[in-house]
C-alpha cells in the first residue's frame, strides 16, 4: 500500500495557524502521534480523514483509500444498541453480525451487545466506538486517544485486541495519544509534534 505523504502542510482556523509547514509520512503499520494539547494533532488526523483540506501544501497517497476513525468523542448513535452502532458502518449488517458480536465480546461487551449506547458507561462507549472502527472496511485507521476513559484493568486487553487486529491486516494506523506507555504498548513509529 502506498504511504500517505504530507508535504509542507499548513492549516489555519480563523486566521490562527494550527499546522505550519508540516512534513510527514504515514506508512503501513502503526504511527503514534504525540504532542501537547492544542498543537494540532486532531487537525492532522482530520486532514488524513479528508474532513478538512490544507491551506497550503499537498497530501499524496490518500486517493482511493477508505478511512476508519475513532473520534476523540465517541460519536455513537445514543438511541441505538452497541451492536447496531458497530453494524452502522458495515455494508451488509446481516452478514457482519457474527463478526460484530465477536468484536464486542472480545472488547468485554458480550453482555451489553443489545444495550443502548446511552445506557453504556464511558469506557464501554469507547470500546464500542473502537469495535465500530475495526469492523469497517478501511485502508487507514485513525485512533484519536482510543484508550481515553478506559480503566487500567480493561486497557491492556483492548491494546492487545488492537495489536492483534493490526498484525492480521496490512493497514496504515495513526494513533494520537498523550501517553508514552501506550506508544510502547502499541509499538510502531513515534511522530512528535
Amino acid at each position, binding site marked *: 500500500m502506498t504511504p500517505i505523504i504530507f508535504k509542507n502542510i499548513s492549516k489555519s482556523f480563523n486566521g490562527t495557524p494550527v499546522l505550519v509547514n508540516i512534513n510527514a509520512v504515514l506508512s503501513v503499520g502503526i504511527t503514534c502521534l504525540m504532542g501537547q494539547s492544542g498543537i494540532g494533532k486532531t487537525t492532522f488526523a482530520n486532514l488524513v*480523514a*479528508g474532513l478538512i483540506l490544507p491551506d497550503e501544501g499537498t497530501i499524496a497517497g490518500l486517493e482511493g483509500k477508505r*478511512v476508519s476513525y475513532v*473520534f476523540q468523542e465517541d*460519536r455513537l*448513535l445514543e438511541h*441505538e*444498541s452497541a451492536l447496531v452502532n458497530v453494524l452502522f*458502518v458495515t455494508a451488509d449488517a446481516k452478514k457482519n453480525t457474527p463478526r460484530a458480536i465477536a468484536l464486542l465480546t472480545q472488547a468485554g461487551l458480550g453482555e451489553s451487545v443489545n444495550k*443502548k449506547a446511552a445506557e453504556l458507561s464511558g469506557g464501554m462507549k469507547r470500546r464500542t466506538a473502537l469495535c465500530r472502527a475495526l469492523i469497517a472496511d478501511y485502508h487507514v485507521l485513525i485512533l484519536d486517544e482510543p484508550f481515553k476513559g478506559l480503566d487500567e484493568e480493561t486497557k491492556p486487553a483492548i491494546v492487545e485486541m488492537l495489536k492483534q487486529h493490526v498484525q492480521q491486516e496490512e493497514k496504515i494506523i495513526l494513533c494520537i495519544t498523550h501517553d508514552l506507555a501506550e506508544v510502547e504498548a502499541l509499538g510502531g513509529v513515534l511522530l512528535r509534534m
Partner: protein
Amino acid sequence: MIISSSFRKFLTVCAVALFWLLVWEGVAAWVGATIILVPPRMAFARLFTLAQTLEFWLAIFTSLRRIMLGFALAMFTGIFLATGAAASKIFRHIILPAINVLNAMPLASFVILVLFMFGRENLSIVVPFVMVMPIAFHNVYKGITTTDPALLEMAHVFRVPLWKRIRYIYLHSVRPFIFSAATIGIGFAWKSGISAELIGVARGTIGGYLHRAQISIQPIDMYAWTIAIITLSYAIDKCFYLMLGRGIKNDAHNL
C-alpha cells in the same frame, strides 16, 4: 375507603366542571336574557336533541373528514418541503418567502381568496392546510438542520449510505419536531377549519350550522354547536396524544 389516584383525578375534574357549570348557570340567571347568555342546562338539552338527528352527525363527519384531510396534507407537504429546503439552498430561498406569506396572511382574507379559487366545499381542506403547513415546515426544517453534525461527520467518514443516515440519524433528530408540529397543528387545523366553514358558509358542516344559528338568531343552537366543537376538539386532542404516545412507545420498543 381507599380511592385510587385515577378515580380521585376523575372526581376532581367532575368537581371543577360542576363548579364552572354552576358559575355559568348563576351568571345566566343574573343576566336573565337567553339572547345574551344561554343557561347551560338549555344548551346541553339542545345539544342532546341535535345529537338525535342525522344532520348533526353528518355535519360532524363532513367537517372532521375535510379538516383532517387538510391537516394530513399539510403535514406531508410541510415535511416534504422542509426536506427539500434543508437539502438545497436554492430551493430554500425560493420556498421561504411563500411560506412566510402564508404564515402572515390573515385567516379572513385567505378564506375569501379560497372561496373564489376552490369553492365552499374545499374551504375546510385548504384553510387548515394553509394554517398547518408552515408549522410543519418550520418544525421539520429546524429538526433537520439541528441534526448533530458530529454524527453526520462520522457517517461521512465511514461512507454510510444516505438511507442509513436518514433512518438512524436524521429521523431520530426530526421525530420530536414532527410530533411537536402535529400536536400544535391539530388544534390549529380544527379551529381554522371551523372558522373557515363559518366565514364561507359551507353547507352541511359544523361551521355552516353555526352560521345558520347566528343569522336566524338562535343562541341556544349556537351554544349547543359550540359545546359540540369544544368536545370534539378535546376528543381529537386526546386521540392524537394517545396515537403519538403509542408511536413513541413503539419507537422505544423497536430501538
